[in-house]
């Protein structure tokens, strides 16, 4: 039962990330004119809600299905084409972002949930993601490192808002279902 449960959880969470990308015009506050997709929010939440290992697997599954040809990335993108695009680094970094978010949540067990989720999301969902994304852009676009970094700096404010929202969501899910967040089973 336990193995099946884990498998189903991983798959259904991957489906949640897909659903977040399929929503047309998700009404998240727009920062500096850059529209925010809910999908990177999904990765942060994967790490928070499922923990590092299952979070990683779940996001990796999502990426696999995208690679197989499902247009599930925000804006209806998908297929092998996205792996030949300038944002390939981000996509490859998705599972690792969830992994690190989950690891951070474990480290911050004693901090209150909102703060822990916020910090974890920033470290996993922004720092780690960009650590994959920027080199990916350098490789794909032959821009130099500084240029690539500048080109995607505009996304940072939006990502900070997403980290904040991820923390708020984690809080409200935990309130509705105590004990559901892996790193918070003992407390609460």
């Amino acid at each position, binding site marked *: 039962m336990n193995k099946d449960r884990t498998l189903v959880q991983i798959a259904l969470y991957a489906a949640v990330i897909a659903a977040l990308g399929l929503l047309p015009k998700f009404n998240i506050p727009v920062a500096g004119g850059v529209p925010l997709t809910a999908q990177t929010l999904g990765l942060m939440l994967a790490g928070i809600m499922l923990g590092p290992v299952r979070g990683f697997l779940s996001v990796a599954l999502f990426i696999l299905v995208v690679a197989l040809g499902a247009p599930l990335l925000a804006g209806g993108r998908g297929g092998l084409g996205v792996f030949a695009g300038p944002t390939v680094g981000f996509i490859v970094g998705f599972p690792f972002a969830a992994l690190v978010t989950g690891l951070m949540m474990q480290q911050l067990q004693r901090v209150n949930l909102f703060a822990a989720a916020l910090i974890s999301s920033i470290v996993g969902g922004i720092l780690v993601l960009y650590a994959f994304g920027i080199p990916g852009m350098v490789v794909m676009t032959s821009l*130099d490192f500084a240029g690539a970094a500048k080109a995607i700096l505009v996304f940072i404010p939006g990502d900070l808002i997403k980290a904040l929202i991820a923390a708020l969501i984690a809080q409200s899910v935990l309130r509705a279902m105590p004990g559901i967040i892996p790193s918070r089973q003992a407390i609460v």
Partner: protein
Amino acid sequence: MPDKGGYTLGPLFNVVANTAVSWFSRKQKTPTLAHEAPLYASLSDSICIEQVDLQRANSPLFLQLSLRWEESRVGLIGNNGSGKSSLVRLLNGLITPQQGRVSVFGYDTVKQAALMPALVGFIFQNPDHQMIFPTVAEELAFGCEQLGQSAQQARVSALALLTEQGIASWADRPVTQLSEGQKQRVCILSVLIMKPRLLILDEPFSSLDLPTRRQLLALIHSTDMHVLLISHDLSVYADFDRLIWVDEGQIKADGAPDDVIRTYLAAIDKLSVSL
């Protein structure tokens, strides 16, 4: 401008390696398929619950519950939260008792848990929770694959069943596009294809339209499987062999459907008067 050759070799190498592996593996034969799961002889004709203790959510639900039947059409009634769902989940090992023993046709649901999926078919209340696969044929084929058939064999078996049922055109339909009744029918077929000996139905009628409901009732009466049915609709028990009323984890009444229904209704009426 950076030297792209150095940067791009990494991902490129992966693609090459992956495709090379897939290319070579084509040359290999497909691995020999597992034989169909071996058979165990039937040990008994009865379903037994012996002195079972069960805790749900930290409060005891069943205390020394015992129940036994050999009849092939048995119904289970009771209010929500009475323990019906837990009771039927004991019968296929989804829930294991803290104390006591549950056996189905002589097979212990805990010690021989591996036998249960092939022995006991379970139809859940909501078809949306039960269907695992995106298309109808895959959903049916899964049961055959579970029993050890190869993917191709399983698809053939699934298509054969669909053709036999006169719904061959459903095969590649996405399950999300089916009506509620059609979904439930697919769920039932996907359980029947595994040929279980006991069929448990947990409120299967709640989302069905009239034609599908009548079809399902006809199936329940014509099948040579043992049937255990949970339903709030008391009219479906008309031709049943036995009816059991469960309340707060205890057997309140057990016997011929008419008698049990009369006792049950009387008790409900008494309760509503006191409201």
